[in-house]
């Protein structure tokens, strides 16, 4: 709000800047600190004696002879089988994103072009489904999945994540499709296109921003999920987040807590890169539903 008439006092400006700096410190410092600490040995990052060790790298020097060590990373990725977890995460994420976008665009397009009353009720139902805590759904899955013997494998988890993701994707894409003028596909229909052709050749090409936003959110859901993946996958198929938790469970073992630290950094870094790259889309996605009503 840069109004020509609005004169800010210097005191207010200083206060404002200080506030932003403090907030940014609170928001970012934990990540910077964890990143820094992941290159130390456990005795430094979790020091009983003196927290300054984490900066001066007292024990890291003693144990490895250098200021920084990547031991935690190499061990977690090989011995800790984090490579397997990240492979699983990639598989799950790729499939969840592509399937949810495919289902979501079709459904949201239909919802945005329907004038019937049931479209409204479907959106309300989706809102209710969106509110369900995932763990309550998981408690519904476990028993049938055990009986059908489809528990523990990646495809089951992918389908479940796609379904859990649908309500949000539908709402998001619905508000995007609403912004595409109806005349566009109506003229295509008059020219003899079928609804599917109008959707495929007329609407989809102008929908890329919306699709990218929806894709990013599906990706974040699949990538970040803990509840579903921890309970529906067996040890062998665990994705990154449940894997990190499994390192914590045995933290009596010295190496393991540092594995968790390095695994947290390894899992977070790609996500941060992605969001940095697509920041505009993330923000527009969060706001379309809200601002456009």
């Amino acid at each position: 709000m840069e109004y020509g008439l609005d004169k800010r006092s210097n005191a207010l400006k200083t206060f404002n800047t200080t506030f932003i700096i403090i907030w940014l410190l609170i928001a970012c410092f934990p990540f910077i600190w964890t990143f820094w600490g992941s290159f130390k040995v456990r005795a430094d990052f979790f020091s009983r004696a003196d927290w300054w060790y984490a900066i001066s790298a007292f024990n890291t020097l003693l144990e490895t002879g250098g200021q920084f060590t990547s031991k935690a990373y190499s061990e977690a990725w090989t011995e800790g089988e984090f490579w397997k977890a990240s492979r699983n995460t990639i598989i799950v994420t790729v499939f969840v994103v592509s399937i949810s976008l495919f289902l979501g665009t079709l459904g949201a397009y239909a919802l945005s072009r329907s004038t019937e009353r049931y479209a409204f009720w479907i959106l309300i139902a989706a809102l209710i489904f969106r509110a369900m805590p995932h763990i309550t759904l998981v408690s519904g899955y476990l028993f049938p999945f055990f009986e059908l013997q489809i528990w523990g494998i990646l495809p089951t988890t992918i389908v479940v994540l796609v379904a859990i993701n649908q309500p949000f994707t539908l709402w998001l894409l619905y508000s995007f499709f609403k912004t595409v003028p109806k005349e566009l596909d109506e003229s295509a229909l008059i020219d003899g296109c079928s609804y599917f052709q109008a959707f495929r050749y007329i609407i989809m090409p102008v929908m890329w921003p919306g699709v990218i936003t929806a894709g990013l959110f599906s990706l974040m859901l699949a990538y970040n999920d803990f509840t579903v993946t921890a309970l529906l996958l067996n040890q062998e198929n665990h994705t990154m987040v449940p894997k990190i938790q499994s390192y914590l469970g045995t933290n009596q073992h010295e190496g393991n807590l540092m594995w968790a630290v390095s695994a947290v950094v390894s899992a977070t870094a790609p996500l941060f890169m992605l969001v940095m790259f697509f920041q505009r889309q993330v923000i527009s996605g969060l706001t379309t539903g809200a601002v456009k009503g």
Partner: protein
Amino acid sequence: MPNKTFFWFFLPTGLAMILFIGLPIISTGIQSFYAQHDQVVKEVKKCDPFGCTVSIVVDQEATSILRDEKPLGKFNGFGTYIDRNHLAIEQISDFWKETDSFGEFINQVTNLPFYKALLFTLTYCLFVTPNVLLLGFIIALSLNAISRKIRGPLIFGTILPMIVTPLVGSLVLFWMIDAEGIIGANLQLMMEDPYLSLKSSRTLTWITIIIYGIWHHSPFAFVVFYAALQTVPQEPVEAAIIDGASRYQRIRHIVLPHIYPVVTFVALISLMDNFRVFEPIIGFSAEGSAQSLSWLIYDNLVNEEVILFGSAAATSMMTIIGIAILLAPVLIRTWKEFRTAR
């Protein structure tokens, strides 16, 4: 769009939602009426020169046969709902009779697992949601006043706590706040109390998790409010400045009314998300002093010996009812708006 076309377009996503969100809720409902089988016991007579003794042992074979035959367990009706681990009707009426003062009664009741979890979940929602709205709004106002050129990186920094998964977010904080971490160790030094730690006090644990919640959710409120602030019309604001309105008055009487619908949206989403609080409890290893409804379900589902499907399902159903109560005002309002719009 004709109904038939709509049907085919909507079929895949509709099917996915019915199969994996609708049916599981029904499955949870059915499971909540069943409880796991009791172990089959048999009497074993053991004789030695001094006489015979009869001891009771678990018949492993018969137990596993019974479990294989009826994997769902035995029918229990509403038994699971009212047992000690859930609504605990019996215990509560006992407490009511036995305790002298109301405070003591409340104390006893909130020690029961379900009520303990409910109390934590509600406290968490009650403290986190308003603070998230407030902090998010202040950050949005504040960032909005900063030069447009450097806003991009600042926004990126601001939304970091939101994009990491709650488990990672809480771990990252926990490693700093823990007795061996940078903040925890310095607090111990400052307070001159070597035993001060997160796990030692229930209140401290609750406060930490609530602070985590505010840290994690504020960016979401910020992003939405920030976008809404961009749509505030300039003319009334300028008119107010000419008329001599103070900064506070401008915010109170022009900006807030304009973004009011967005505030309700953020409050609703934030409430829904806070009600399912679960991962931070694992991240902060706070199971001992803070348990939420979702955590209770998780705990039943990862039970070592037998997975307590019935117990988890009963808690799930009550959580869903809780969500329904939270959502009811919004749904009623939407329905009224929809009716008047028609």
